[in-house]
């Protein structure tokens, strides 16, 4: 195993001080090597999204440290970390290509250069020909493709995905899952993928981290030993079922509590 690209060490997060405060995460430690696809699952409200926002540098943990490439994360690191949310969160007044180029604009990259990079990313995500559409002229799946292109445009080492397909319909979700795996195999990013769907987690990831109910603790760390490239038939395999079952046992007991 290569050196950890993202290291989460003894991280706890509390919201609010005193007895009325809520513990969201409890001493989480994870070492994620370069180019690994990690899914994070857990019962509702277990702090999965909070964990991602810590890696994104949007907030500081109450205790512990988060490192990216050996460097502590104390603020957003746009050149190292891209993020995709449940909603595409595109700027509605910008065209698809301008949305993808937005992170580069913030860094004052010259216009021609940033538009060229954005076009390449739209091509990678299968949206060539839709560059000039406004967000409201795109379908939900296409908007999320634009968001993925925006996440990749600075060629960050890490891609954080916070339930990115949760508001899409089943078919779109399956197509985008395969697309994401294709993009991942072409770009070899380290992916941290939060999801509610065990199918999605096992189908996409190399490794599934299972969190407990609030405050979130790591209760299992499952290596997904299914071969790549993944295909739809694997989802019906015995191994797939066994992995899903193992994860489901943790979630079931937590959700019942």
């Amino acid at each position, binding site marked *: 195993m290569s050196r950890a690209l993202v290291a989460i060490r003894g991280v706890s997060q509390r919201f609010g001080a005193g007895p009325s405060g809520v513990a969201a995460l409890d001493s989480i430690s994870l070492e994620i090597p370069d180019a690994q696809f990690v899914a994070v699952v857990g019962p509702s409200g277990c702090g999965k999204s909070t964990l991602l926002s810590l890696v*994104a*540098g*949007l907030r500081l943990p109450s205790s512990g440290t988060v490192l990216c490439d050996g460097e502590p994360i104390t603020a*957003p*690191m*746009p*050149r190292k*970390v*891209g*993020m995709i*949310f449940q*909603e595409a*969160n595109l*700027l*509605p*007044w910008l065209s698809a290509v301008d949305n993808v180029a*937005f*992170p580069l*604009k*913030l*860094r004052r990259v010259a216009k021609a250069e940033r538009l060229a990079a954005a076009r390449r990313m739209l091509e990678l995500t299968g949206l060539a020909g839709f560059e000039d559409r*406004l*967000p*409201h*002229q795109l379908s939900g799946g296409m908007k999320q493709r634009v968001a993925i292109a925006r996440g990749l445009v600075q060629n960050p080492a890490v891609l954080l995905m916070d339930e990115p397909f949760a508001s899409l319909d089943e078919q779109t979700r399956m197509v985008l899952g395969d697309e994401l795996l294709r993009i991942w195999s072409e770009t070899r990013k380290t992916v941290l993928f939060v999801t509610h769907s065990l199918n999605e987690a096992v189908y996409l990831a190399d490794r599934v981290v299972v969190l407990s109910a609030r405050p979130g603790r790591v209760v299992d760390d499952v290596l997904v030993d299914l071969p790549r490239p993944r295909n739809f038939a694997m989802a019906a395999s015995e191994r797939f079922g066994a992995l899903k079952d193992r994860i489901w046992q943790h979630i079931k007991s937590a959700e019942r509590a």
Partner: protein
Amino acid sequence: MRRHERLIVAAAALGLFALWETLVRAGRLDASLAPAPSTVAESLIRVAGRPEVLASLWVTAWEVLAAFVVALPVGLLLGFVLAEVPVLGALFRPLVNFLFGVPKSIFLPVFILVFGVSIPQKIAFGVFTTVFVLIMGGIAAVQSVPRELITVSRVYGATRGQIIREIYLPAMAPILLESARLGMVFNITAVLCEIYGARDGIGYRIAAWGENLQMPQLYAALVIVAAAAVAVNEALRAVETRLGAWRQRT
């Protein structure tokens, strides 16, 4: 509106004028109260050519513009502050909401007492009336900015200035323009309170013609003021539609 709808509207307007004209000529409508459209049109040409009328129009236009130029930044800035500073918002928003609903014309005598019957009085009253619309607009504009977009920009390393320029301003633009347009409607109405007491301005002329029962001139002035107000409103609306195209759903 589609083409045939526009034709219908135009035909209806023409029909109305034709009916009005016919009724006056047939003696069924009192020409001294409702002069025929042809008489009004004739009077419009004469009135619009008189230098003292043109001068009055300029006075009013100037007052409207001056009041707007003051009220616009003051109102919007107050709105932004009330929306972004929770303490001030909690303190003053109830007061603003309350005053917004009060008809401003009841304060006109106070303005006349303080400033006298004068141009500053009309401008001050215009500012007072308009500023509430713009405060409400400023608050609504800030609240219309999607918080998620601010989070996204922060993830991509936006500075405070960049968040204001790249997210706040474009997100607020349609509502800001809408408030400016609405504010202008209130502003024109306030300045035209000069009808109730003034020494100059087109409102003063209208009042004088009305008192002397010079109906053709009165109606001609109404046409001019209405046309100017509609022109300003439509110009602002055109900009609003252009800048707010992204808000439209297909």
